[in-house]
């Protein structure tokens, strides 16, 4: 299963959800597939899930989807304990686990390709709904459930390494532009001012 196959299924399901991407090929693929204004690319390895948790805890009435990778998730395992403690019911984390550090110039196997189970770590941290899916049908089922039902979900999606992700056109929107676009989207849809007019 390729990550982009899953994202192709997920993109049309997203309406007013907020989507956080981390430093992973999913960032390029997601932005290639959708122009959703509620997408925020933080591209900080190890920070995507925590940023998504902050959004979910800070704005509990909006669903937040995090698109993470195995390498990025492994960088901040302590975040799983925080998720388990607060159980934000509006947070849905999808970890696309290709068992590789594939952003390095020469791909290198990650611990999830040896013995480490992110689902096992999440369960041990106290996240009840932690599952691993290995085919597109199972991913689609989990994605639809995540968007239909309340509850913290942590879904590890086993995917193959896909070098084609690197061939996609690179985003032209930088972090600050992405932030303003995202924040203005929140302001418009929530009816609040986050960054007030300059004076």
């Amino acid at each position: 299963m390729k990550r982009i196959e899953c994202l192709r299924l997920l993109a049309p399901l997203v309406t007013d959800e907020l989507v956080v991407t981390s430093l992973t090929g999913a960032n390029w693929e997601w932005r290639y597939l959708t122009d959703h204004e509620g997408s925020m690319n933080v591209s900080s390895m190890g920070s995507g899930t925590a940023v998504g948790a902050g959004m979910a805890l800070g704005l509990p009435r909006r669903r937040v989807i995090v698109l993470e990778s195995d390498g990025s998730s492994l960088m901040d395992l302590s975040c799983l304990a925080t998720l388990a403690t607060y159980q934000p019911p509006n947070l849905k984390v999808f970890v696309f686990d290709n068992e590789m550090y594939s952003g390095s110039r020469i791909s290198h196997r990650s611990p999830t390709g040896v013995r480490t189970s992110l689902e096992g770590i999440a369960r041990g941290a106290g996240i009840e709904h932690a599952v691993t899916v290995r085919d597109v049908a199972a991913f689609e089922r989990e994605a639809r459930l995540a968007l239909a039902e309340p509850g913290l979900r942590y879904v590890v999606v086993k995917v193959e390494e896909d070098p084609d992700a690197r061939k996609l056109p690179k985003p032209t929107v930088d972090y600050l532009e992405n932030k303003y676009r995202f924040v203005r989207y929140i302001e418009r849809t929530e009816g609040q001012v986050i960054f007030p007019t300059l004076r």
Partner: protein
Amino acid sequence: MTPELAARVVGGLKAAGIDFVAYLPESRLIEMLPLLERDEAFTVVCASHEGTAVSIACGAALVGRRPMVYMEASGLFLSLYNVLSVGVRCGLPLLLVVSHTGSTGDRLNSATFAGYGARTTAVLDGIRIPYQVVDAGDRIEERIADVARAASAAKSPACLLLTGEFTATAEGQTA
């Protein structure tokens, strides 16, 4: 920190519009935590790593909350990657309230902390994070408002380093 000073700090945070707190407990300013947790004006989130706390606070800032991160100086060192790779890179206003452990004013200073205290402001200067060092409680509300305003104006993390009187316990304990 004495309970009276803790109440003033929390009042100052509230007056400055802070409404979201991510933290890791520490030993100097801990008296403000129960006050923050009891006050419905604040969403309070305990993380297990200061870097996680910073990223959580950044997420809250992106959806319109006015966040702060409370931690001690050693945690600030641990969280620098998150401060830079999310807070600075994305330009997010974030108030960092940090016990200036190991500074010369730290009344609980010891060999455990001194190494951090001697380097904290140099690191903040190096990564160009605006900060104020405050060692006395008079006008603390203004100091909090000043640093929170600096964070909002620059759309950047800004740091309040609390030492001196803030590191004194109600029992007068010293290291």
